[in-house]
């Protein structure tokens, strides 16, 4: 399954501290994490666990207070805008709220055109660009002719999220970070989004990293699971091991607090605080 040599992204001792003095907040506390090529991982935690901050550090959107990020074995260097642009050719993200992922003043075509530009495709002819955009849209079961020249508010939530995936298809990054990609989508459309992300991994070998609070989703979709609590990595490992055989008390509590349907949901363990 996983080969120690093909670690695409890893972090060691990653720490992020906000504020100074009495208002110091350690959002991420010395976290070690590593992702293998083609692997699907999930970082699971409740709100305030630091998972989104960790994701943003891995993406390079916020600075790292302590620790190092390694990309393809080498220390990551994103000190200049040019280096950042290079890095972002290899790692991209999908965010939770499809409505706020778009600039409401620009047509959706610009989203895809920006991606083509990032792949140095600006000199392509209009037909070539159209071809690329249509292909990307059909990958996510959208028809580009129907969407072209529309503004984001004219699309539904599901369509917008799928278009975000189409954007990833155009960019074909090595790593994709998906931050709660289905929490704002209807239950019936969830499977579609998940299937598309899996297809992305299957066809292009992208490494997927899910950030979620839904442990059921994490179990369904991932090979490896990482559990975070208050900035600390509590437990990690193979999905089956962590979910069906949790070792740490926090993990055990987390799993038992989720309502089940096949197994009994034990309510007697509720202790009032």
């Amino acid at each position, binding site marked *: 399954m996983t080969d120690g040599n093909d670690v695409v992204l890893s972090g060691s001792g990653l720490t992020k501290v906000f504020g100074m003095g009495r208002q110091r907040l350690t959002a991420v506390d010395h976290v070690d994490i590593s992702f293998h090529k083609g692997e699907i991982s999930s970082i699971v935690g409740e709100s305030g666990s630091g998972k989104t901050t960790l994701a943003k550090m891995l993406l390079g959107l916020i600075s790292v207070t302590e620790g190092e990020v390694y990309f393809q074995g080498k220390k990551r260097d994103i000190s200049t805008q040019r280096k950042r642009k290079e890095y972002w050719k290899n790692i991209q993200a999908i965010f939770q709220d499809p409505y706020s992922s778009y600039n409401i003043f620009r047509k959706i075509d610009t989203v895809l055109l920006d991606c083509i530009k990032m792949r140095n495709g600006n000199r392509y002819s209009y037909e070539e660009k159209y071809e690329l955009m249509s292909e990307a849209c059909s990958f996510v079961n959208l028809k580009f002719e129907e969407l072209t020249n529309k503004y984001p508010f004219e699309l539904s939530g599901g369509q917008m999220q799928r278009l975000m995936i189409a954007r990833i298809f155009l960019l074909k990054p090595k790593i994709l970070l998906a931050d709660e990609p289905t929490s704002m989508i209807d239950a019936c459309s969830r499977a579609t989004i998940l299937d598309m992300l899996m297809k992305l991994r299957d066809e292009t070998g992208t490494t997927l990293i899910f950030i979620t609070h839904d442990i059921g989703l994490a179990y369904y979709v991932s090979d490896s699971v990482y559990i975070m609590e208050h900035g600390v990595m509590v437990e990690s490992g193979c999905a089956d091991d962590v979910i069906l055989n949790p070792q740490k008390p926090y993990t055990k509590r987390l*799993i038992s607090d989720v309502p089940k*349907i096949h197994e009994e949901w034990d309510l007697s363990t509720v202790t009032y605080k």
Partner: protein
Amino acid sequence: MSKVMLEVNNLTTKYVTRFHENIYAVDHVSLKVEEGKSVGIAGESGCGKSTLALSLMGYYFPPLHYTSGEIIIDGQNISGMDPDKVRKSILGTEIAYIPQSAMNALNPTRKIIHFIQDVIRAHDPKATKEEIYEMAKERFDLLGLPEKVLNQFPVELSGGMKQRTVIAISVILCPKILIADEPSSALDVTSQKMVIKMLLDLMDHGIIKSMIFITHELPLLYNVTDDIMVMYAGQIVEKATAKEAVFDPIHPYSKGLMGSIIVPESGVRDAKLTAIPGVPPNLKNPPEGCHFAERCKYVQPQCTAQSIELRHLEGDRSYRCIFSEEHLREVYKND
């Protein structure tokens, strides 16, 4: 045969937009809740379940308007009742309602005991502070809430504690029926479990006689309610017991919905999640015939020809589809 606490017959309510368009968010909904039972209403966002909750209270404010139908609470017909009369005699005493994120409705400048005094005094102006305090303390003990909460301000409480407090306050007058609209969606899993336990305790201790639980999270309904009703585009499309609804749904939409449940249990990794393409219909112009037809895998021309009624099966089970149970089970098997 237990007493029927809440009976709703063909309730229809609408929203009227600024441009005078009618949106029938609740379309001829009928349901019955018996004493000692709880009913769950499942559906995705926009199906009308929250509007149904508001309508059940009989407390309408523009742009929400009552169109037709009956609401009978413990034998008393409240549909079309004057809003003031509803407020004085029905809300709080017969029926209680907890909206989504009710915990944010607490005035941050008052202590919790003040809200309880407010509710009790509204119905019994002569109650003294000591009486109220004693009663509140007793009730809080019963529900596992610490007494010190009574003297705290809302900001001093955690999210889960606030939600449980609000639930306790809303049922302080022992209403016959409690309507809870997504009571735990904004909380983390641990607080959610505490809220659910509390709701079950309320039923066990007899503080409330029946409950309607509204949510989009099906595993919760399975563990909390006796019966489940699935709502789609303003209509009830299936009514069954919780077990039947989750493990043996009949209506194609319910089948799709139940097929999209993910829980952290073994076997889930091998299951295939179902997805239903498309989006719910625009209720400004409701489609002719079955509301689900445009997204249904098994649609036939007759589905959109006429309006579809509920089909009743043995027990209290029913579903809204033009096809018979046998036909549907046959097509499901072939999938």
